[in-house]
């Protein structure tokens, strides 16, 4: 089925080099027109391979990749009309900035005056007027990054791919560039696919995030949804921070799972498959969802001891340990005045306590 607002779609795509280990396994993914999609995952999770499959530098072992309704499995990269920004920028060192940006127009045999016009317009867009005659080596990392962006956008590609484009920049510059890329995307309305292993980058920039792990998409959703409703333990761990510890499932009640830990019973939302009472499951709680106003004996309240306290300026990070030895991390405001060796009773609201399958 071909839907009109899909730019590229993956149908059961797998990629293997040796026939045994799959870099990408059974991938189904649809890029929607105009969206900013981020492929997020640790290294080796298959996100870059997926990008290379879209670009045409890799070819699927099985499955179909479609673009505008046509199968493009073996279409060479030069005929896909996709702009790519590489991690190390890949600017042509022997050409000036203007020649770099003009390159895609020249190979498309655009007329000279039009090339000139479009190149200077592109350089204005990335705030690099006046740099046209310089060589890439004379520019800073951030400026080179902008040239790479201008070059990837100047030929009005139907899709722009970015492979960890900000990886080589320092933190402050990275944050500036994140906003710039974000606003370029908003201004152009072109579909962007962005690869990163930095979860905060993914959360701030994307319309949708696809979390990759072991060659498969674990969850594809909006940043809010990924953060608030992670579908499994991996997503909860990888995006944001999570305290995770095992527990025994006792049953479900009103859509809530009830689990037993050595320190008491917890109720929480669950994403369980076919687990039954007595099976081991995984409890996942974000540090900011732990509050310190619990009463011993109340539902979802557990006693713990503060074993370490780290001051972070806007908050204090507390390392906690229960009587049975479960360790977890919580956050409080500095005003609460909790100190090392204090005994506390923490409360975890049941909608913020999430129960996953063990796997």
């Amino acid at each position, binding site marked *: 089925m071909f839907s009109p607002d899909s730019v590229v779609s993956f149908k059961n795509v797998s990629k293997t080099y040796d026939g045994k280990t799959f870099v990408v396994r059974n991938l189904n993914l649809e890029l929607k027109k105009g969206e900013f999609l981020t492929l997020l995952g640790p290294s080796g999770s298959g996100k870059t391979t997926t990008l290379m499959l879209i*670009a045409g530098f890799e070819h699927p072992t099985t499955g179909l990749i479609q673009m505008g309704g046509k199968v493009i499995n073996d279409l060479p990269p030069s005929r896909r009309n*996709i702009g790519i920004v590489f991690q190390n920028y890949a600017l042509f060192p022997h050409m000036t900035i203007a020649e770099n940006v003009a390159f895609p127009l020249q190979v498309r045999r655009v007329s000279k005056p039009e090339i000139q016009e479009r190149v200077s317009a592109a350089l204005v867009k990335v705030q690099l007027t006046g740099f046209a005659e310089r060589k890439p080596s004379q520019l800073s990392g951030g400026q080179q990054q902008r040239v790479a962006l201008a070059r990837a956008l100047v030929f009005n590609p139907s899709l722009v791919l970015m492979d960890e484009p900000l990886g080589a920049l320092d933190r402050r510059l990275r944050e500036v560039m994140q906003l710039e890329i974000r606003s370029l995307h908003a201004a152009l309305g072109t579909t962007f696919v962005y690869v990163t292993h930095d979860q905060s980058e993914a959360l701030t920039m994307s319309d949708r995030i696809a979390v990759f792990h072991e060659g498969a998409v674990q969850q594809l959703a909006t940043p809010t949804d990924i953060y608030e409703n992670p579908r499994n333990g991996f997503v909860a761990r990888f995006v944001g921070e999570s305290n995770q510890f095992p527990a025994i499932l006792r049953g479900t009640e009103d859509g809530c799972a009830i689990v037993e830990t050595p320190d008491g019973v917890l109720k929480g939302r669950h994403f369980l498959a076919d687990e039954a009472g007595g099976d081991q499951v995984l409890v996942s709680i974000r540090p900011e969802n732990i509050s310190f106003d619990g009463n011993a004996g109340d539902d979802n309240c557990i006693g713990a001891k503060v074993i370490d306290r780290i001051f972070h300026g806007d908050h204090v990070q507390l390392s906690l340990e229960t009587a049975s030895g479960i360790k977890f991390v919580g956050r409080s405001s500095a005003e609460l005045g909790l100190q090392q060796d204090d005994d506390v009773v923490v409360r975890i609201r049941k909608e913020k306590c999430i129960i996953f399958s063990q796997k």
Partner: protein
Amino acid sequence: MIRFRPASTVGARLAFLTVCALVLLFLVLPVVAIVPLSFSADPWFTYPLPGWSLRWYQDLFGSEQWRNAFFNSLIVGSASTVLATLLGTLAAFGLAFHRVPFRSLVMAIVICPMIVPVVITAVAMYFSMQAVGLANSYTGIILAHTALSCPFVVLTVMAVLNRFDRNLERAAASLGAGPITVFRKVTFPIIAPGIVSGALFAFFTSWDEVIVVLFLGAPDQRTLPRQMFSGIREQLSPTIIAAATLLIAGYIILGIFMAFRRDTGVQR
């Protein structure tokens, strides 16, 4: 701006410069020492010079043998350079960019002519060229010199290819360039300096080569080194020194030209 330097640093720097100067002198002195002999009035290699004259240069330019030798060297040198550059560059691409079975073995074979003593190569060349009827011919010498200079081209071009960022090719392809355009507009311009220096190495390998020519060349194919060699053996005269002086002058001019090009030329 005034810069202060501790005394010990100045001393160390002085010692360093002295050693450098001595080493350079050691390298250059024997060559420089023979140059005045080419302007000697007498045919004997003695200092102090008995008198100045240009007679050996007159001899050199007047002699048909020397002129032929010069053109022979030029023909053999340029033909083998073209062949070696072409073959060596192709080999370097294969070895650097593609998965080659038994790669280190192939590499060893390619580099072979550089490592095997030239006399052995020359004897082997003689017998094999004889067998196919190419001994005593330009073709034979050109092919032999091509084999000798190929390794230099392979090594210099591989050196630039190993530093070449293949993402540039991917970038160019993604921007709409087909494989030929990618090579013409991106790969070649970036690696061209490596190919040029490989070609220069190849040319001077042939230009300097005497042993293979001794084995393979008929009197018709006397090259400059061959002419000098027989000059030294048969009638030792300062004409050889005059020829050598001119060659040295040529090398110096070329060296200055290349240094200048590197300083002002396109920089990465």
